[in-house]
């Protein structure tokens, strides 16, 4: 068995009567770039949200590096149930809130860019350092953590340099052109030092040239940071070029999986995307 970083097992997510994700099973192995594709409303982002702890799933579990990090709870009130006190009862880690998932090493970006609007590029990156602080409220307030603070800033600057955003360091994040905002969001996710990076439509709204740049960027990031990448994307050029494997989701169900070549020629995928043939 190859070393899987992420394993999603029988995950079902229901909102009221709507089944957004239906019995999803998938694996992402170390060092891979895996894509999740499917038509709009197929439940891709919902799957991401389950993995990152935004919604507790109706059923199923998520494993990260072999540890169970998310599982269903009979009442669906997992958050309350598992906040802290029950942690010791399990041999695996239960980390249902997004911040704890992030601390475990899963970072993500969002479909509709979610940068910190009122802050500069530098500050956006710097925020990720917060979770690694060793100072407490008092030492931080009284600025007794000078060394740590300097280190945080150095780290952030270093990352900015790597992603080539140091020329816009002090610009407001929202004043950047679209492509750079995307890159900043990825950089911000990288700042949390993840081992798994989830990208939600990183190329959405980009022109071909920007998409090409992004493709190169993602590949470079994977290599430089020794990452595993799991990504939702619509740009087929990008997906086919970069992905090691692809999962296809339609109406919440997995309909196909495999290497780009396999998926590309799968008739179920074609019909899901074109949609109409079967109905006629």
């Amino acid at each position: 068995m190859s070393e899987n970083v992420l394993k999603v097992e029988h995950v079902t997510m229901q909102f009221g009567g709507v089944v957004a994700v239906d019995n999803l099973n998938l694996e992402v192995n170390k060092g891979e770039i895996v894509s999740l594709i499917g038509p709009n409303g197929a439940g891709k982002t919902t799957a991401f949200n389950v993995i990152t702890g935004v919604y507790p799933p109706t059923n199923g579990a998520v494993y990260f590096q072999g540890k169970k990090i998310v599982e269903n709870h009979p009442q669906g009130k997992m958050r309350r149930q598992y906040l802290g006190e029950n942690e010791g009862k399990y041999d695996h880690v239960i980390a249902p809130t997004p911040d704890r998932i992030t601390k475990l090493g899963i970072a993500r970006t969002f479909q509709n860019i979610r940068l910190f609007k009122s802050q500069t590029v530098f500050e956006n990156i710097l925020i990720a350092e917060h979770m690694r602080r060793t100072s407490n409220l008092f030492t931080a307030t009284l600025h007794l953590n000078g060394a740590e603070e300097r280190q945080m800033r150095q780290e952030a600057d270093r990352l900015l340099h790597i992603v080539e955003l140091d020329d816009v360091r002090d610009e407001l994040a929202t004043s950047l052109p679209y492509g750079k905002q995307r890159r900043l969001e990825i950089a911000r996710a990288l700042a949390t030092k993840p081992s798994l990076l989830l990208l939600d439509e990183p190329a959405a709204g980009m022109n071909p040239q920007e998409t090409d740049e992004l493709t190169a960027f993602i590949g470079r990031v994977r290599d430089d940071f020794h990452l595993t990448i799991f990504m939702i994307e619509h740009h087929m050029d990008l997906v086919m070029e970069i992905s090691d494997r692809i999962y296809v989701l339609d109406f919440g169900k997995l309909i196909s999986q495999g290497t780009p070549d396999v998926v590309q020629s799968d008739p179920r995928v074609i019909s899901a995307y074109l949609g109409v043939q079967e109905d006629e």
Partner: protein
Amino acid sequence: MKKQTEAFVSVALIAALLIVLFVLERVIPSTSMLFTVLKKGAIYALVAVSMNLLNGFTGLFSLGQAGFMLVGAYTYGVLTIPVDQRANVYMYYDGGLIQFALHPILAIVIAGIIAGIFAYLIGLPVLRLKSDYLAIATLGFAEIIRAVFQWDKLGPLTNGSNLLRNYPSYKSVLFYFAASGVCIALIVLLINSTYGRAFKAIRDDEVAAEAMGINLAHHKRIAFVVSSFFAGVSGALLAMYQTSIQASMFKSAMTYEILLIVVIGGIGSITGSCISSFLFIILSEWLLRFLDSELVIGGFKVPLLRSGFRKVVFSIIIMIIVLFFRQGIMGTKEFSVRGIYNRITGKGRKAQKGGAADE
């Protein structure tokens, strides 16, 4: 301009302000209205900044400020009334339960802590609520606290519906500026620390902040408790300034007033809150008072002027600010030495985020 120079100039300016106040106190009679409004302005600046920490910097819409001020004010009053005065103050409750008195400074700190404890307990359930719901729940809590403090059965502790008074208070305006200044400085330091960055991240985007590994519940609670701590301290200062307090003063109208100050100053601007609280207090308590009395100039009776007109004019001014100057006095900018320096020298316009007043 170098960082050290900047810090030095800032400190020098603050020192100059204190010296001016010190001199003023010796020149102008201490009963002057000037000192009254300065004291109250300093207290309101603190509570406005503490509210800004929540509403402006953490994005938590809380309307419980008056409630926490009440807790602070009562804690201060209850703990500092001299023992020999207690029989007099607690005359309906046989001198009350507590028979000791603490040093005022100590009591101020405890006032903040007790308010913080209340906030912690209240925060456990309500901080899970979002925006308007949080606002209405905190407003409700302030009302509940008020009723509890007036409860007859707690009379031996809180003196029920009756005033607390005869506790010690500092008269000098310098004390209020120093106390309020230290607290505001602490809040500024907090906002500029890594915690402050986390608060701002939460304000800008909760979901993204959580994805950055920031524990929402924990940080919201910190902001709520810290804000309430300082509201409690300002309540204690208000008690001192008023020389007597009663739970019925701390109505929701008080919270609205503070909220207006924050908005007029600019949500997310500390200096804005300070400037606007002084403006607000000076205008409403002092300069506009003439509108309340009839005025005859050269045999001509100025129309409209009579009791209550001051408030009408004042509320119209507020509406104009709210409608036409939505950013308030400062927006989210800060008034800083560096900002002025850059303005004068024309340097660093582009890169500066925290520039001077209005650009």
